């Protein structure tokens, strides 16, 4: 399992890529829940969306769907970032650019 430790510069680039991805995903997290579901719920409620008031739909349905998708996007994107910087925890992932599904 263990690999040689990544160089400091590589390590820092990896960490910055991680923080950038996290920032984007957390911004979406905030916008759909606190934004659409709470702060903007009233104006959005003027819009009808498949039988729902739109703000109400975000608060009780939409935000939860987005949360699930965000975590899967994060897991997939981090896998790619791990591989790119050679810090993956899956031995198969570091062998070339293969898109193997991994050890599921």
């Amino acid at each position, binding site marked *: *399992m*263990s*690999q040689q*430790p*990544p160089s400091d510069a590589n*390590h820092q680039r*990896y*960490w910055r890529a*991680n923080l950038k991805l*996290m920032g984007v*995903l*957390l911004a979406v*997290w905030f916008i759909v*829940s*606190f934004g659409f*579901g*709470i*702060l903007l*719920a*009233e104006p959005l*409620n003027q819009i009808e*969306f*498949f*039988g*729902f*008031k739109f703000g*109400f*739909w975000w*608060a*009780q*349905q939409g*935000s*939860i*769907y987005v*949360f*699930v998708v*965000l*975590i*899967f996007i*994060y*897991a997939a994107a*981090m*896998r790619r970032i*791990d591989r790119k910087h*050679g*810090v*993956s*925890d*899956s031995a198969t992932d570091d062998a070339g650019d293969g898109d193997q599904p*991994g050890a*599921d």
Partner: protein
Amino acid sequence: MPVTATNRGPTDPMDVQALTYLFVIGSFALYIGIAVWSRAASTGEFYVAEGGVHPVANGMATAADWMSAASFISMAGIIAFMGYDGTVYLMGWTGGYVLLALLLAPYLRKFGEFTVPDFIGARYYSNAARVVAVVCLIVVSFTYVAGQMRGVGIVFSHFLNVDIIWGVVIGMAVVFFYAVLGGMKGITYTQVAQYCVLIFAYLVPAIFISLLITGIPIPQIGLGASVNDGSGLMVLEKLDRTLVDLGFGTYTDGSKAMIDVFAITLALMIGTAGLPHVIVRFFTVPKVSDARRSAGYALLFIALLYTTAPAVGAFARLNFIDTVQDAPYAEVADWFKRWEDIGLVGWQDKNADGAIQYAPGVPFDGPPVFTGERGEQGQRTLANLPSASANEVYVDRDIMVLANPEIAALPGWVIALVAAGGLAAALSTAAGLLLVISTSVSHDLMKKTLARGISDRQELRYARIAAATAIVIAGYLGINPPAFVAQVVAFAFGLAAASLFPAILLGIFSQRATREGAIAGMLAGLVFTFAYIAYFKFVEPGHNNADHWWFGISPEGIGALGAALNFATALIVSRFAPAVPAPVKTLIASIRVPAGVERPHDHP
């Protein structure tokens, strides 16, 4: 209740009783069978199942661990009566998983020890910090576990006519068997089974009731569809109009202040991410990448129930009003009388017209006190003094889930299923909580603090003794719930949000957060949150309203402010404290990369 040959239908109480026994005993046998099969032999297996759990299985186990008696039995009912304001629970108890997946779980898995206090102790190079974390963990977990045992007792008494005390004792015996014997390994696989039972039991009645009201089998879509009563109105539109006609506010708009909704949602989210029994589930998967994926599966499995709950709530409210409003008591649906017999429904004919009127406000002071006699219409007479409102109906929110199958006239096996599902939800959460309590005692207090150098075997014995003791205490609290049990739920989330979450987060993302900063931060968050909640709940309950709250934030939401205080204190104190030692900096660097992940073990 008397049974005559003519009313023996599919929901005949005798058949339902027999089916319920069958389902409950069958599911218990399954859980115990799994526990025997997956008996734990080492501390590694007892604490974290040797880090060998598949991410999907861990996702299911996490979902069962997380969804408690409150989620299964109470949440849809709370939403039914709160409408839009119920959003705080829906978003608060799911959004926390995004924080957990992105900010905590992968790094804690890479760290690779057994407990949350392990991480705090190592990262902040301090046993004092570890002990503070243990105290937070125990307070949070016991608050929670008492509620679960109570839930077990309630399900037993409602569905099986067993006394609450015996219900709790049976629940204790089952949890004792598989938590003490199987440890994390046994708990994990029983939780997988429990998830399957509870989600099936939740979705089946929800699908039936959605079909009944809208003709659409998917509740999430049915909630936005039109009611098939020929009126052409949408479900939520009809609900809004009906409620306004009766004098309530609309269902789809809230009555809480926006800042309070914001604060409560935030406090529940970061509280969820800081709950030790949830965090520790991510120590059980093989790799860092598995921890990330597993959080996704966990939330997917949780979302199945959490997106169904608002539909169940809205349908149930609509059904409830349709059934009772202006119905003569003598002709009202059977379920109304059945739940009245159990004491979860009460009716006081204030205007003496023999019909039921439902309106805003409480019908009378306090919970119903039955005199034991029957009134003119055959209703149970109440000793309570009537309130000034026109409302004549007392209804316990829990019946929105418990009575749903009966309200929708579903077959007896669906009712039996709900009982098994409620028990699965309560037992799975209780087991997860008991495990983190026993682990923190045997590992963090004994092995790492009081009795250093004990062998693996001795530590395992301490873990089992601690688990057994914790079960007895939890059972006691379940049988004799402190009067304030409902009041202290705010404590569990508030304290987890204000104490553990910020310390763990800074430990991963800041190289500068020091021992002094972390301890000061945790204590500041803990004391502030505790004092605020205690003041409004116990010292001055009369002041518990928006006029006296800080910034309009209720005690339920104050954890958000407590967390901010924790972060600020930790960062400021850290600036004036000696820098983080070099070995700890190496540790931080190593938890930030997934490569080189190992099975969880004791660091020497």
